[in-house]
């Protein structure tokens, strides 16, 4: 049992932190970046590719770096600290993660290789505002019909991974070229981008074996992304708390700094408690994910999702309250972190973690986070 990063992991963290600091150490740069489409910096995306970050979780055979969920978590935390708008979570972890799970060897090499090199941005279209998207076989390929929304970074994506219902009612996974569908992109309240994507007999290719049930694979990819999102939230919460304590020490009211008032210090102390408990849970979830046990990972994702989500609401809300009105303004970092935390808790869908856990309370007498030896 060990919660510390090794030297290589610390080197990865420092490299990513250094690269992001060049771009986003001044929050004003992030504001300018999200003001214009595609909402992130394509050249920074290329630099992340050169550093190997975009291929981090994929096997070397697929053109990746062969790293694991812990390394993904390290990158996600750094992105979260500066609320970088680059689509690492949606494109690499989620859409790329699903391709890695479901794709044929040829698809993995082609799609993940170009994702890792920065040539191709992916998006996952799985949420549906209305009727399910349907998939119909058509010779060697398929056609899709229906609407997906919101698809994060859906308008910019070169290729979209789509979940759709096959004629037998089962869930299939498909690849669609981005410009083959009708896309309406828009900004979301965190400065990010999402889209409504309409398919009208749109040509699609089955991702992996067309007979395979895609539902568990989709759920597994979502679980991995939820855990990574928890780390991105952790990065945001760390900065929200440190910005708040700095503010309490410097801002004067009634002729004295705010940290003169115990009521405010106690609220900051409670934010620290929430942060450290959330950190423990998120780190544990990454370690569970790294074991490769799909069922355990889904449960860990629900547990971390519930706990980190609560912490994010607490820390985000109190960071704004303790700053006062300044945190409500668009040019100040803290309120924007809270907006981003709010998105991260939601965009992966199926976020009702407490219901999932409540349904399963009979499955165990008492929780034990340390796995029993398998031998």
């Amino acid at each position, binding site marked *: 049992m060990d919660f510390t990063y090794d030297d290589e992991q610390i080197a990865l963290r420092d490299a990513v932190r250094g690269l992001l600091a060049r771009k986003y150490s001044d929050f004003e740069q992030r504001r300018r970046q999200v003001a214009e489409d595609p909402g992130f910096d394509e050249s920074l995306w290329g630099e992340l590719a050169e550093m190997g970050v975009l291929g981090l979780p994929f096997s070397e055979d697929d053109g990746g770096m062969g790293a694991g969920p812990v390394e993904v978590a390290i990158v996600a935390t750094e992105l979260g600290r500066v609320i970088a708008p680059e689509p690492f979570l949606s494109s690499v972890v989620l859409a790329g993660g699903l391709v890695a799970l479901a794709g044929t060897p040829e698809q993995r090499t082609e799609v993940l290789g170009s994702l890792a090199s920065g040539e191709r941005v992916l998006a996952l279209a799985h949420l549906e505002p209305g009727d399910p998207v349907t998939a119909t076989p058509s010779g060697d390929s398929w056609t899709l019909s229906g609407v997906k929304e919101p698809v994060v970074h859906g308008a910019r994506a070169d290729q979209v991974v789509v979940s759709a219902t096959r004629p037998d009612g089962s869930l299939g996974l498909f690849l669609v070229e981005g410009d083959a569908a009708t896309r309406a992109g828009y900004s979301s309240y965190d400065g990010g981008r999402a889209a409504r994507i309409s398919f009208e007999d749109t040509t699609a290719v089955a991702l992996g074996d067309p007979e395979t049930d895609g539902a568990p694979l989709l759920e597994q990819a979502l679980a991995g992304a939820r855990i990574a999102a928890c780390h991105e939230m952790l990065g945001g919460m760390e900065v929200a708390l440190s910005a708040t304590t700095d503010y309490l020490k410097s801002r004067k009211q009634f002729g004295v700094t705010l940290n003169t008032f115990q009521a405010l210090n106690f609220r900051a102390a409670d934010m620290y408690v929430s942060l450290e408990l959330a950190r423990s849970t998120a780190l544990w979830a990454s370690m569970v994910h790294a074991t490769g046990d799909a069922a355990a990972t889904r449960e860990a994702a629900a547990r971390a999702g519930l706990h980190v989500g609560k912490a994010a609401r607490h820390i985000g809300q109190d960071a704004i309250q303790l700053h006062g009105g300044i945190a409500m303004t668009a040019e100040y970092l803290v309120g924007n972190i809270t907006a981003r935390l709010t998105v991260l808790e939601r965009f992966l869908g199926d976020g009702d973690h407490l219901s999932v856990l409540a349904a399963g*309370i009979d499955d165990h007498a008492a929780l034990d986070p340390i796995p029993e030896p398998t031998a």
Partner: protein
Amino acid sequence: MRLELSAEDQAFRKEMREFFTTQVPEEIRTAVLDGRELSKEQVVESQRALNAGGLAVPGWPVEWGGRDWSQLQRHLWHEEMQAAGVPLPLPFNTSMIGPVIAHFGSQEVKERFLPPTANLDIWWSQGFSEPDAGSDLAGLRTTAVRDGDDWVVNGQKTWTTLGQHGDWIFTLVRTDPEAKKQLGISMLLIDMTSPGVEVRPIQLIDGGHEVNEVWFTDVRVPGENLVGEVNQGWTMAKFLLGNERVGVAPVGSVKRMLVRAKQVGGDRLADPLLRARIADLENELLALELTTLRVVAHSAGGAPHPASSVLKLRGTELQQAASELLLDLAGPQSLASGADPDAGGTDAPGWARRAAPTYLNLRKASIYGGSNEIQRQIIARTILGL
């Protein structure tokens, strides 16, 4: 980062589980698991079984019975003990005065007191708090005045937990009334059978007798019962209270309470609101347990991790919340707290009769050991720099 225990730690955990479930009388462990109170004799019997196996005082120096374990192994020892229903070794002896004597006592004091302290031949009481010295411990007023070779002690201690069982009491006394308040304090060991020592029970809201006042009237204490140097008491008190904060998160006992809630919930577990409440508490407890594991993994050289205040704060909140859950499940049956089931006096099950006294008793958890407000102050000052 690694999720699994090392092979060595896995073997250690197994060894602990084996010992606790076979070497401590089952009757005692069942009583603990059922949430019943133990007699003094049962607590003593259990600790002697642990001591015989070398497991009562692992945190002490090796020459006095300690084990040179890692912090993680100490944690596993602590958790497996709770999971098996073994009463924790009496904290006054094993985690409070024992380490202080081992660290600050003279060779003579060590030889005289450490073996009987480990074996619970002496039941220690803690004499720190006074009516005007709670969280502000340095406000204590009990005096010790030198008279020949002896000290003469006068004053009053309060909140002396289980003082009715105490053979000896370790006290903080004021030995220099002129000095700045933290600097004039010493630590004295006092035989509670000495003339002038009087223990008076304090009745609590849970109906039980757990704490006492201890009065000292011209009590003569031999000079050699001083621990360390004169006026060094504050240093020893900080050492002791620092130890107290380690292992303070009652993860094992809250786990037991949640398991009990599931067992006794019966048909009511069909209620999604109840299920959600249990699931939420379980998940909060998971975060606490994982944080405990993070803290023990990082506690180098025995110094408490700064985040150990988180464990005290959150641990007691969860303990209180779990007791509230059990009380809600007991409902009106909890009123039978004073009934005698052996005499046919009630149909209410034992857990339901214990629910309200436990709920009321546990209100103390956020007060003792440095109140939760003190913990928030520690976090704000020492961690956040506020």
